């Protein structure tokens, strides 16, 4: 028994050889120690049954433990050698990968989704409406006077009768107010049409995102808070925001919201016409006449609404100089934003 334990101790010494062994030496070592016929440890294990029960237990435990150690050491060394083999067979790993085509959403779609998602976080669901509209929905229910200059045919595309291509997404405010009771919180993305010739900063067709919130007790403070929160979430948490007076027939008070210029940070540059501010959206408290036109009690309910142009926002945020790039659909342009906007 003593000699067996000594043999095991001697064998244990050979564990140290394994981490240095190359592939061939490793194979030899394996045969020498664990080989089915002539392995030294196999041999010792083979002698166990002949031992007395008392020493059998002691030697057996030691031999089996050593066997596990050797197996683990051989496995580890084999993995190392395999891993090393990959690196040393002369493969140039800087060669280009095999790729598939990468698809992507249009930048404007991504910006629309980003904006709508921020408003979703503020409780707004997504609503839509038709692009061919009646004058009632597009103008009159929104408190445009019958002879408002916006009704000039030169500004809108008419389809015959009182039908026209909507000039803003605001008619969906009316459709929503007519169909659903307050509280209402919706954002309305969609395509709108104006009779503007296509040039670097105008397109006869563009996207708009409308928003509407109507409930009891909604005030100017809620209006400012919601839109300022949007701006800080969309641009940056420390973005400066300002509201200033404006005029829309369907809001009163009306306001434009500016954010600090994203190009110069507010110092003044060509993009912001040296003002340090960028106009982001037109907005205001819903005009009581609009609520009344939809059969909503304007004493009990108040609300706010806004509209913004995702193309312009995308252009200023991403430094795109010409709106036509958004419609040309050059795959090199589209691919630039296929991986996202950041």
């Amino acid at each position: 028994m003593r000699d067996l334990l000594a043999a095991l101790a001697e064998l244990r010494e050979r564990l140290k050889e394994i981490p240095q062994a190359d592939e061939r030496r490793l194979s030899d070592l394996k045969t020498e120690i664990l080989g089915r016929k002539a392995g030294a440890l196999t041999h010792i294990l083979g002698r166990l049954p002949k031992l007395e029960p008392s020493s059998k237990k002691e030697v057996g435990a030691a031999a089996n433990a050593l066997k596990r150690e050797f197996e683990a050491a051989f496995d580890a060394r084999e993995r190392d050698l395999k891993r090393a083999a990959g690196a040393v067979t002369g493969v140039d790993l800087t060669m280009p990968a095999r790729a598939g085509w990468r698809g992507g959403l249009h930048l404007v779609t991504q910006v629309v989704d980003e904006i709508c998602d921020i408003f979703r976080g503020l409780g707004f669901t997504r609503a839509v409406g038709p692009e061919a509209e009646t004058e009632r929905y597009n103008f009159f229910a929104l408190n445009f006077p019958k002879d408002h200059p916006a009704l000039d045919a030169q500004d809108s595309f008419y389809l015959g009768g009182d039908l026209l291509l909507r000039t803003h997404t605001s008619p969906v405010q009316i459709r929503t107010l007519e169909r659903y009771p307050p509280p209402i919180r919706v954002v309305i993305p969609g395509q709108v049409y104006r009779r503007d010739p296509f040039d670097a900063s105008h397109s006869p067709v563009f996207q708009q995102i409308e928003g509407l919130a109507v409930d009891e007790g909604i005030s100017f403070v809620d209006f400012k808070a919601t839109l300022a929160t949007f701006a800080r979430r969309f641009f940056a948490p420390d973005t400066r925001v300002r509201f200033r007076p404006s005029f829309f027939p369907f809001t009163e008070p009306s306001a434009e919201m500016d954010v600090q210029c994203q190009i110069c940070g507010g110092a003044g540059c060509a993009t912001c016409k040296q003002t340090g501010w960028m106009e982001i959206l037109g907005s205001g408290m819903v005009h009581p006449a609009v609520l009344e036109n939809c059969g909503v009690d304007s004493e009990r309910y108040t609300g706010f609404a806004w509209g913004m142009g995702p193309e312009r926002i995308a252009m200023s945020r991403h430094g795109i100089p010409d709106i036509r790039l958004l419609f040309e659909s050059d795959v090199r342009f589209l691919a630039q934003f296929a991986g996202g906007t950041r």
Partner: protein
Amino acid sequence: MIVSRRWLEALLDRPLDARDVSDRLTLHAAAVDAVVPLHQDLGDILIARVLEVKKHPDADRLSLCLVDAGGGGKPLEVVCGAPNVQTGKVYPYAPVGAVLPGGLKLERKKIRGVESNGMLCSAKELGLGADHAGILELDTTAAPGTRFIDALGIADHQIVIDVPANRPDLLCHKGVARELGASIGAVVKLPAIPGGPADSRTAGLSARPPVRQSATGVVDGVDVRLEDPEGAPRYMIAVIRGVKVGTSPAWLAHRLSAVGQRPINNVVDATNYILFELNQPLHAFDLARLRGPAVVVRRARPGEKIVTLDGVTRTLTADMTAICDAEHPTIVAGVMGSAESEVSADTRDLVLECAYFQPTRIRRTRRALELSSESSYRFERGIDQLGMPDALRRAIELIIAVAGGEVRAPALDLWPEPQQERTIFLRPERVNHLLGVAIERPEVERLLTGVGFFVAPKDGRLAVQVPGWRPDVTREVDLIEEVARLKGYDAFPDELRAYRPGTVPDAPDERARARVREQLVRAGLLEARTMPLGPPDGPDAVPILNPMSAEEAYLRRRLVPGLMRRIEYNWANRNRDIRLFEVGTVFRRGTGAPEEWTSVAGVLTGARRPAHWSEGAKVPDMDIWDLKYHFELAVAAAAPGCNVEPATGGAVGWVAVQQGGEVVGQANPLEADAPVWAAPLFGFEVRLAAAERDLVGYRALPLQPPVERDVALVLPPGVTAAQVSDVLRRAAGPLLERLEVFDEYRGPGIPAGHRGVAWHCTFRDPERTLRERDVDALLARGLEALEGELGVRRRES
């Protein structure tokens, strides 16, 4: 609207900083688009006095002047070519090194042998007018060496205001000054007119003329008849006799130049001055040219003609108001006067019109005649009907001050239905309710009073009288806006407060659009956006009544044509591998309103995947099978439940067919204007179904092993893979789990017209392990059915 900083300074009687003005107006009244410094390019020009004028030794037409240019320096010798240069007079002087308007830098140089130290300037050289016959003689007491722009007071800023359609009061300096005054705590006061008024000459005007609630009257021998009180609710006329038409004094010309108006003559300039000061358009015309003499305000007779100031003959309609003499129209009311009655150098006696014209009438007239003017712009937006007498009196004073003349009779004020100031009741608690913060009543009163509202408490409310220049303020909420903006929107907090969730569900169409976009992006397509306007692409395309061009005269009825144009654009930019899709609205002519729905389309051309160096040869281009894959993908995402079937009629392509047989999509190769290096082009389009989708249910994953078999079949002409697959599935039953084509072969060993198609079949029984002989039996049953029903046999190998 352009306002002049100096003009505002005159009205508020204090110096102003243009930047500060711009910020205050933007935050409290209306956005300022630009602040433009005026005459910055004259900063180098000085005032100089000519001490002595000598003849140039070597040129008859030139003189040699000794000039005092201030600064304590010695008199300088300046060569001058102007005939009007005189000793002792003061002129603008450009020293050596000065940069003149237009960028020319003045060098020291010899003129006919004599060195000239700078130059005396003409008005034209300074960009101040067309006069270049002589140098500009200045009437100033400023010391030599003073900067020219300071001495003349023409250093100014133009403040360009984007006046919203509802604020006509901001279309004049007084209105803008009022807003500014409210912000800085100053009161507007009209500045005295230089040189006037002389009481004796305006004797008839010392009091307001009496209002006549009638339609006729006589002023100083002129018969005035208001026959169209609907078009001209209030109409005032004055007669000024003995004016001398000539050039305006410098102060008046400068005021107008500063706001971008060209001075014309003293009478016209005076009326323009009142327009820009008080927002009251005025019309002065020549009494001598009036037949009658009469002024008749009436609807134009259909077909009546007038030659307007711009020399164009205009034909009037009965929808327009015309100011006529006893016979003919002399003015298109509120828009433009006639060339004939225009004030000219010979005019002695003036008729001065001060009117309120009905805004809608003016707008229609302006549109019908395609003729607009500063006057029509203001009448359209609504002027101050109550402020007319004051504006007319100031206009008369100004005309007499700058052009002489006298008024012999009080003006005539025809106002058949006099208006009062509007009164609106404001509930202080409603202000707080809508604005969300408590604003004390005295502050509300202070803010409103600051811009001209008259406020009196009444029964716990405020009775607010609206001044005539604010036609936009008609209900309580308008006053609340006044309070908010005058206080400043920035003064309100913007902390989020709790809100109740809304009742409106997400629109199904938006969800469907997002789902289909995601699927196509995953398949490697890039989303495009195309113009929904174009040429007609079918008989039921929806026409636009007033298109901008013939190429954009219809709404699209499909997306593919627009996407094809984008492919051609990409080809023009040498892009070869293009995969685009679009999700957008399409339109078809319907009964009544056009039908519109969301369509999904894609176009594909070029390599199936990016080439990789390890594969050597070029990657194959996409073919109809790639098209079919993308079409099936799009249909599954956009119109679930639809089948993709081969198109009928022999052409290569597929259609998506709804249950019930309606075709809602198609896919096919496309013909385009392709360069030689381009790959074949394919396109598909399918109508998006917005309906909510069924839940995807879980199917238990199989525990039993599959048994697989390959079978090669010979298909006679006309037999399709779909038929084979149907028969096999039916005959072999549900244990045939999967059936895939893995080869097609035509050629030796296959009868002509036939083809060999090989299938890989996977059998599985979910309950037990299938035995080989069970599978053989199922397959045999399938083959038997194929032979019997379709004449398809197993291929001999």
